[in-house]
């Protein structure tokens, strides 16, 4: 034990005196709050709530059937470059320091985690699809030159409009859903729970996985508390709800 550790622990014990409770008082902690919502995971009420909350925080929500996923993904990835052009001309004031991206109308690129359902990508003709994994990762610079990312999710929370990624092969390394400017996240409706406690207990079965909770696109309210969507993380978040 280092000197510092020993001293800090002894200061704490002295501070607590006889009150130190090594037996634990966990039993004394009241837990009267809701451990689950009144609606079942994936129910219509829960989905409606999730959609409302996601849209309130400027995420784009798309409902689709499994068979329609490839066409929808193709459309969302294509849409992207039009938006980029618009953003590039009106909001970026110093294009010289921007990440280099393909010219508008050029070949678009998307990064996908190695475990993503391969069938989902079948509509992406003409798109440069880059596969990333822990064993064969793209560099930060390569990700920065990639337009979009498609991932699955582990769980979604309706009340807060949150999706959670846990780094499994269909969701990938944390960096891939961060650096590209568009994140398309595919969520199965049966993954949608109503409350935060339901999600935490699900995630608690593998708490050691790297977790990213995402509620809308990145945002800041640092200037006069006026909310600006899209700072360092993806500026566009598409949530594809599949049932």
């Amino acid at each position, binding site marked *: 034990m280092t000197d510092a550790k020993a001293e800090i622990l002894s200061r704490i*014990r*002295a501070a607590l005196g006889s009150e*130190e409770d090594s037996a634990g008082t966990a039993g*004394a902690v009241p837990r009267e709050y809701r451990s689950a919502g009144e609606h079942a995971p994936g129910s219509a009420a829960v989905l409606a709530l999730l959609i409302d909350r996601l849209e309130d925080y400027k995420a784009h929500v798309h409902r689709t059937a499994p068979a329609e996923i490839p066409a929808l993904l193709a459309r969302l990835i294509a849409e992207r470059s039009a938006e980029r052009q618009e953003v590039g001309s009106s909001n970026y004031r110093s294009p010289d320091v921007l990440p280099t991206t393909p010219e508008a109308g050029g070949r678009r690129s998307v990064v996908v985690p190695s475990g993503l359902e391969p069938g989902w990508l079948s509509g992406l003709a003409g798109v440069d699809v880059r596969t990333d994994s822990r064993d064969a990762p793209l560099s930060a610079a390569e990700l920065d030159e990639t337009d979009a990312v498609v991932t699955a999710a582990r769980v979604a929370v309706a009340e807060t409009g949150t999706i959670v990624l846990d780094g499994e092969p269909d969701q990938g390394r944390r960096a891939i859903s961060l*650096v590209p400017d568009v994140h398309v996240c595919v969520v199965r409706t049966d993954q949608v729970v109503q409350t935060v406690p339901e999600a935490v207990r699900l995630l608690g079965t593998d708490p050691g996985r790297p977790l990213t909770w995402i509620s*809308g696109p990145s945002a800041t309210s640092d200037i006069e508390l006026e909310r600006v969507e899209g700072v*360092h*993380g993806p500026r566009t978040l598409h949530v594809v709800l599949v049932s």
Partner: protein
Amino acid sequence: MSTFLGMPSARTGRGPSPSAAPDTLAGVGRPEDPLHWGASFPDAAKAALDNDQLRRNLGKATSTIRTKRARVVDEVPDWEALRDTGSAVKTDVMARLPELLEELERNVTARGGVVHWARDAAEANRIVASLVREKETDEVVKVKSMATQEIGLNEALAEEGIAAVETDLAELIVQLADDMPSHILVPAIHRNRTEIRDIFLERMADAPPDLTDVPRELAMAARAHLRRKFLSAKVAISGANFAVADTGTLAVVESEGNGRMCLTLPETLITVMGIEKLVPTFDDLEVFLQLLPRSSTGERMNPYTSMWTGVTPGDGPQEFHLVLLDNGRTKVLADEAGRSALNCIRCSACLNVCPVYERVGGHAYGSVYPGPIGAILTPQLTGEQSDLPYASTLCGACYEVCPVKIDIPSILVELRAREVSLTAGSSGDTADRVWSAAMKAASFAMADGARFRRAARVPRLLRAISRNGVIKRLPFPGSLWTRSRDLMEPPKQTFRDWWAGREEQR
């Protein structure tokens, strides 16, 4: 417990005063001690009240965030139950702190992290500096962190030739302006959009020359400025919102994605965390992840929350160091009456509802922890005498909104009582001697009916010096009171006289 609700005696200043200068970009400078800088609270508050721009900025910002918070808290049917649990979990943590810290250390270590212990700011800064030096880099990226503000880490690293780049937008503004944060959550709340544009134009080399003051454009300028730094940084430094003892999981709650950039892209991550940030179990996060965002930014959930447990091979930093910081926290823990200040999760809801904070701003408190929580936490952390417990009207709004139910007003009163009993007549200070003499005189007069009757006639004399019903300045020693307030003209009649007259008329 005796209760003293007035203003403290005047004390000598604490070095150079933060000058209220609305027409200059220059901030207040970086103080030697982030917990104790600037003028005394009464003097700093007086200066701040003269700054109209500051008051407008603060009034607008705090009223906006109060409304947002109230709306999203009202949505939650079990809010009070969550507060009860949050409070009880934190109290439990403090009672079991040694075993929980060791449990955290075991779990972080088992997952490939390295745990360091720091008794004070200097030790924490030394540990971080030497870890950065080992990586042979002279620039690190930082996630907004109160703990590293508290220990003055950026300044300590600068002395070692290491540039620490703040990546949170507001912290970047504060850093560029050579300023101090004035709010726990929104450190640049004292700046408006025009001031921020001017700071960027003057101090951010790659700011577009035609930058306007539209918030979106300012945020995009910061994005462009920081992008390369994120992509090339070797070392990142963060704080932590929560650490889970039973899994070794750390959590950082943020909005912009700068946190994710720092926590994900560099090879090495160093996290500095106060020893009170623990929760016992992973499931406890379900409580705090509901309490914190709604109390803090007034959002149902903040845009991004990152959780990591040691090192994940192939994903994120492959070297992780956790620095556990005491720096006065054990002093707070030793104070049974004030201990619950350690339960604070740094949401800053108490700042936004405080009538004193709203008018004087964060800099008047002379500490990185301003507002009601700062008024109790700062003097407890430093163990120094302080006038901060008087920076409150005791209206109780801070307690009403606190997500972990810290009874700030009661602790303020307790700290005031201690301050008075500590200083009454004991120092050579004129004001203290006058205070002590006045208290003795008051107790002499009030102990006897006849004496009290005679003393009650005195205020009538004061009517002679009032103008338009207000007394601006009393002669010494009363000048100590009127220095910072006007006195209303006393009534023509005392209550006793009025009562006696009423009885006679019957």
